[in-house]
């Protein structure tokens, strides 16, 4: 009997070792993964698996990888310029309802089949099978008809004029084009695609779920051929591990928004051994005040809060220069946003205190919080607890506003709760950021005008809100460029001037790369991959 325990332990060890050997043999084949580093390959890390590369669906396919394989009819260039892509040119009828696309004739899918009006229509029809699901993208629910005019001409008819159509065609999903071989039997791509066949500069070569994906350059690509032959995407969910892998040299590039912490970025940058870039603003981080709440219904209070904190110091302090102080509710590099006439608010504590006094919120003797009719001036700010920038900004605001006699309570919630409470109008103050290129400015103003998304209710106390909403309804329908610009200037100016939407900072993307990586540029489209121009020294 006494022998049994030791026997069992030895047996356990033996069995475990055998099992382990069995496990390791099956995966021994992918050793070349690290060996093939020296060739013209760029290795890059992403927090999540690239997904099934379905151009017509959202999760789990990742935007950057989808954009490597699939292409749009129109692309979004620097400064918001809409450029021909798979469509060589387009004609819009004078009533703004009919769009005629002349397609490029030299485009082939990666399996050799040709790109033509038939396949464009087939893709549109697959998307339109789930029209409700895609209704967040404005023009989709306005499509009346899709037609093949001839082999390389495709016609899109809308139920009403909608100017952002061309801009929305640049979006990474759902309107990108899958080759015939990718469609399932019943043509319904919402359940999955057969294989990722696109026209893009990259082709998926090797893929292991949750581990890595290797993209090969599409040698028959119709456009500018990428300099790099291969892109290896390693899936590394943890931000600190990404940093360590980069330091060790297992990665050539880290890129994106919030992919590594600000501290890590600055620490890596300070070593001087890597190249770094920071993009143009991609979105504005805003603070939204709910004007249906008693204390925030007075414009003077909202303005006082804006004057009452040192924005430049806050943004610099919290983001160490990775974000930039924002004076406008939308970044000014988006279409129609550069010409907004508003008074930019400068940090001014006296002015803030004066405004609060005027609004009737007085500081009682011996107290630190202002009161009106016995009610203290308390506001609650909701932030996404997973986002350290929001959290630190909330804490800083709490301290700053305490100085002008406003008590700020801060509440950290999960992202989904944040979205739900915002939509249900159950908040006093919230963080928000706009969608960026190619969605804005029209998506942002549309969200403001639509009931049930949060903003519509939040700005209820604006005396001219109905006028703003009617202008928003008009802006996407007008076919007159000058009128459109005027409407945007009015809408954005008025929204900001009355203080319920307070711009804090411009969000930017970061990139950090080894010294042998050159020509890195950020794409103008926020969701697009950055790999086309990049080169790696051998």
């Amino acid at each position, binding site marked *: 009997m006494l022998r*049994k325990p030791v026997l*069992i332990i030895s047996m356990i060890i033996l069995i*475990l070792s055998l099992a382990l050997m069995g496990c390791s043999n099956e995966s021994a084949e992918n050793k070349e993964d*690290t060996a093939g580093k020296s060739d013209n390959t760029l290795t890059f890390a992403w927090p999540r698996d690239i997904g099934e590369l379905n151009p017509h669906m959202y999760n789990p396919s990742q935007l950057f990888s989808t954009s490597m394989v699939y292409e749009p009819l129109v692309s979004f260039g620097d400064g918001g310029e809409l450029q021909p892509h798979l469509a060589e040119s387009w004609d819009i009828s004078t009533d703004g309802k009919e769009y005629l696309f002349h397609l490029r004739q030299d485009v082939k899918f990666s399996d050799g089949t040709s790109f033509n009006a038939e396949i464009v229509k087939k893709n549109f029809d697959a998307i339109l099978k789930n029209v409700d699901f895609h209704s967040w993208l404005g023009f989709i629910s306005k499509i009346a008809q899709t037609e093949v005019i001839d082999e390389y001409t495709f016609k899109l008819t809308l139920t009403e004029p909608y100017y952002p159509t061309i801009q929305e065609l640049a979006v990474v999903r759902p309107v990108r084009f899958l080759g015939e071989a990718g469609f399932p039997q019943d043509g319904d791509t919402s359940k999955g695609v057969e294989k990722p066949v696109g026209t893009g500069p990259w082709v998926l070569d090797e893929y292991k*779920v949750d581990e*890595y994906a290797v993209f090969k350059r599409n040698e028959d690509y119709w456009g500018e051929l990428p300099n790099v032959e291969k892109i290896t995407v390693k899936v590394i969910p943890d931000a600190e*591990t990404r940093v360590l892998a980069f330091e060790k040299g297992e990665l050539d590039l880290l890129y994106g928004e919030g992919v590594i912490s600000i501290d890590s970025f600055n620490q890596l940058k300070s070593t001087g051994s890597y190249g770094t870039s920071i993009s143009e603003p991609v979105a504005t981080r805003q603070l939204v005040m709910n004007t249906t709440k008693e204390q925030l219904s007075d414009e003077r209070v909202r303005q006082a809060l804006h004057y009452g904190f040192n924005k430049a110091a806050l943004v610099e302090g919290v983001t160490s220069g990775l974000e930039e102080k924002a004076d406008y509710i939308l970044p000014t590099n988006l279409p129609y946003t550069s010409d907004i006439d508003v008074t930019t608010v400068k940090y001014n504590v006296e002015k803030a205190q004066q405004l609060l006094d005027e609004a009737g919120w007085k500081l009682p003797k011996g107290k630190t919080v202002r009161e009106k009719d016995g009610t203290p001036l308390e506001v609650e700010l909701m932030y996404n607890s997973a986002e350290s920038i929001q959290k630190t900004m909330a804490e800083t605001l709490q301290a700053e506003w305490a100085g002008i006699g406003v008590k700020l309570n801060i509440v950290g919630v999960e992202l989904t709760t944040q979205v739900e409470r915002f939509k249900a109008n159950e908040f006093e103050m919230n963080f928000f950021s706009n969608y960026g290129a190619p969605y804005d400015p029209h998506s942002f103003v549309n969200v403001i005008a639509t009931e049930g998304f949060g903003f519509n209710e939040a700005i209820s106390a604006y005396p001219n809100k109905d006028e703003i909403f009617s202008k928003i309804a008009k802006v996407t329908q007008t076919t007159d460029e000058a009128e459109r610009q005027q409407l945007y200037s009015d809408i954005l100016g008025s929204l900001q001037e009355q203080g319920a939407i307070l711009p804090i900072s411009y969000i930017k993307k970061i990139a950090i790369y080894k010294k042998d990586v050159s020509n890195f540029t950020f794409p103008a489209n926020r969701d697009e991959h950055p790999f086309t121009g990049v080169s790696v020294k051998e």
Partner: protein
Amino acid sequence: MATYVFKRIITIVPIFLIATFITFGMINLSPVDPAEAYFAAAHIQATDEALEQKRHEFGLDQPLLIQYVNTVIKICQFDFGISYVTNKPVWEEISARIPATIQLTIGSLLIAILVSVPIGFFAGIKKNSGIDHFSRFLSFIGASIPSFWLGYLFIFFFSVKLDLFPVEGTGTWEHLILPSLTLAFPLIALYTRLLRASILENLQESYVLFARTRGLHEMVIMGKHVLRIAISPMITGLGMNLGNLLTGAIIVEAVFSWPGFGRYFLEAIFNRDVPVIQAYVLLAAGLFLISNLIVDLIQMYIDPRISRKGRQLQ
């Protein structure tokens, strides 16, 4: 013996049912709507129609009781539903990731046994010696350092600074070492203490005194007699910790980018991928139940007094 085993297996059924109920209840207590979470994950401002469509697709528009009954019936047929995020059967997703997790678990069990048996043994027979102090130090560290931080430390020293192992990934045995070691560390702490205490206890037994009076060599007494008996609590510990190992793997897998199902579970929590969360919790519950059963059986085999006691009580 056979009836004992049979009875034990029967008790698993109600426990499992309770587990399904609790999981289902907890998930539904959460205020977050999975349809909303789906769009939030994709950074899309979903319209009401889109949300409605998703809720219908997920079956969330049915009464709770019907949802629960449907879930249980499906689980009995080993169907864990379709993942909200990937649209694929959950079982397919999980079973593809289980081998990696098992590999990691086995690796760390091996390390834990190979390290803790010698240290625990020598710490026990040479109380207050250098090795005993070392084992105490190791136990305190192992019990108090959170595994994610330990993982970072290991990566930093062994991978970035010394360049001995890769930072992340799978494929070779080198990839396995650091994550297994991280996962094994708390176990080493536990088993070392367990074995040490058990050996100290056995040293007080009269059979040791008797062996000594027989003039047996001290090493023989310790190696041949004391260790054999003293190791028994450790076996219990091993079995009891099998479930813990799998759940501990969640963090370690995330830190080392290990493609196992713990990491998949973590992602599912963020995405409110309810069928996946449900399946994971149930599998973990099942694993705890089964490993406890196996441990009991092994114990019974080693020490038949346990089952005899059971019979006498009846």
